[in-house]
């Protein structure tokens, strides 16, 4: 990833690491079944005030259903949702302290931008003049001043996205739910809007729960990520922990690219543990609680492997042949074949214009340190 990751200001405060602060959103044993098929399966989750929590997963993993239960559009089959100590199980959407930004934006096509944003305030019974003042402030914040009288169909996709954001923020909800907020935007606009979203979140101090299938978006925005699969949460952690220390094979494989070596625990030394694999022994950092001969997997990210023509003396060494490669500018991604036949992916940083870059069919040496591998037991 070439883009510079912004620093989450909310990330400086990490209440989920200590137990002193009570969670703001408390989800307990939450399940939702549609005709006996579980969409959300026994999810428990705590989210603290001021977080940008990303629910990340592929389509059909249950992340949108979970969000819709928080908004009140779906009733849970079982389990509890509490926000700020209030049980929301039987609270209809119109009286919940949450607002939602819809994936399709769901702007009212027969109303102006201004009327769309003021809609929620007017429903609270706020007087017209006051509602219009608040609306104008909100439109200024999302940089839409001057477009008050336009209708949604007269706006660009990016402008519509801002109207939807303004409309969902104007009531200052305790919790803002965002369903693929940047999904409909093109790449450049998406990157700009990510920063803006974080800026606004920081300024207004609202807790965000964001549903996304885009891992880059989740990495950039989130204070923490919940990776979902088949209705269950497979790992909840800070973005860099999810990437560097995935909890299981699913998360390791889902986030980024990974090479997985299946094997069994062989012998542990104080500073390294050996895992027996079909590709040869792999040395990793020792992990407590493992039995001898227990089957485990070692996950190694492509950028943590070195690729050279000569052996390097790294902790782990493998010989391979180049099958294919793709020059990406900042890195070149190599697809390698091991003698056993399986393939590896290795990315090599490009430091300049090489006279003779490693190319097809060349025999190469792959190396990685004991620290590079992550042992997965699940």
């Amino acid at each position, binding site marked *: 990833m070439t883009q510079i990751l912004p620093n989450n200001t909310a990330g400086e405060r990490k209440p989920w690491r200590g137990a002193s602060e009570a969670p703001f959103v408390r989800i307990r044993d939450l399940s939702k079944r549609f005709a006996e098929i579980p969409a959300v399966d026994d999810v428990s989750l705590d989210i603290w005030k001021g977080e940008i929590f990303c629910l990340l997963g592929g389509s059909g993993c249950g992340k949108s259903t979970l969000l819709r239960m928080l908004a009140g559009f779906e009733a849970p089959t079982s389990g509890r949702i509490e926000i700020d100590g209030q049980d929301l199980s039987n609270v209809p*959407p119109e009286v919940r302290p949450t607002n939602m930004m819809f994936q399709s934006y*769901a702007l009212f096509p027969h109303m102006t931008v201004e009327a769309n944003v003021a809609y929620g305030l007017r429903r609270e019974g706020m007087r017209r003049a006051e509602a219009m003042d608040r609306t104008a402030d909100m439109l200024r914040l999302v940089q839409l001043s001057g477009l008050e009288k336009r209708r949604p169909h007269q706006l660009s996709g990016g402008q519509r996205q801002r109207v939807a954001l303004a409309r969902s923020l104007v009531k200052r909800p305790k919790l803002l739910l965002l369903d693929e907020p940047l999904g409909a935007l093109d790449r450049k606009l998406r990157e700009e809007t990510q920063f803006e979203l974080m800026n606004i979140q920081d300024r207004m101090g609202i807790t965000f729960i964001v549903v996304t299938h885009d891992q880059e978006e989740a990495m950039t925005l989130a204070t923490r990520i919940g990776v979902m699969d088949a209705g269950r949460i497979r790992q909840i952690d800070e973005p860099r922990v999810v990437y560097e220390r995935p909890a299981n094979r699913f998360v390791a494989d889902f986030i980024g690219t990974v090479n997985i070596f299946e094997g069994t625990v062989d012998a542990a030394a104080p500073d390294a543990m050996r895992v027996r694999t079909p590709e040869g022994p792999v040395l990793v950092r020792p992990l407590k609680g493992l039995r001898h001969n227990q089957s485990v997997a070692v996950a190694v990210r492509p950028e943590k492997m070195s690729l050279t023509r000569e052996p390097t003396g790294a902790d782990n060494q493998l010989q391979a042949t180049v099958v294919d490669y793709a020059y990406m500018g900042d890195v070149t991604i190599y697809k390698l074949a091991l003698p056993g036949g399986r393939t590896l992916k290795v990315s090599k940083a490009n430091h300049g214009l090489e006279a003779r870059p490693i190319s097809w069919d060349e025999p190469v040496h792959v190396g990685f340190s004991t620290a590079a591998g992550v042992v997965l037991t699940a």
Partner: protein
Amino acid sequence: MSHVAGSPRMSWRRWLVVAIPMLWLGVFFLLPFIEVARISLADPALARPPYTAIWADGRFTGDLENFLFLLSDSLYVNAYLSSIRFAFVSTVLALLIGYPMAYAIARAREPWRTVLLFLVILPFWTSFLLRVYALVGLMNPTGPINQLLLWLGLIGEPLVMRQTDFAVYVGIVYTYLPFMILPLYAVLSKLDDALLEASADLGAHPAVTFLTVTLPLSLPGVVAGAMLVFIPSIGEFVIPALLGGPDTLMIGQVLWNEFFSARDWTVASAVAVAMLLLIVLPILWLQKMMEPAR
């Protein structure tokens, strides 16, 4: 911007596409209308056809006498006003009954949705005349409705339903209800659920959501349905003839009487032309109303 028009061949083809409906309307609407308009300007004559020519010896001999006659006799003005009243009240009733039905069908799950839509269209499979006769039978003093009410003890003697304005309203609303339901269904079924959820999310109770989101967005369907009920109702002949009483006055009956009983083709044609104008004007007005919504 000359390039917008495209090549000459393209515009020729475009003309062909427009020409077919134009030709159809010309042959089946415009020519007969010109004929009727011509007769309306002529004088009656004891001849075959029973009217004079409006063009004789190179001179225009027609006049507006027949139209002036319509204004002079209160029967015609009353019949027009009464027709508008019947059509208007029937349209409002059809809207009040049709809207909830269309809404329910649009919200129904498949396969119910298809079944319900089919049921709305089903009456068209029987002759319209037969269905109106069936209503006559139902509303007879000895008909099943009266017998049921008598049997239940709700009434002491049979209600007079046939040959009243009430029966005419029942007939018109029953006959034209599908024309109200179908356009309403078309707009309501396209309504995005996310808009209703967004409204609820922003604090609107379901009733408020209906008034602020559903109803305004279904307005094109309301207008289309209202036109489809109102316009044919004004000129309705069969329903008042079969279900109406001696006092029921509608312009379609007057037209029939002038043509076939009085055999005064010239006045009858004037009634027809005036009726057409009476129908065209509300259409133009409604279309004007619709413009800002687009």
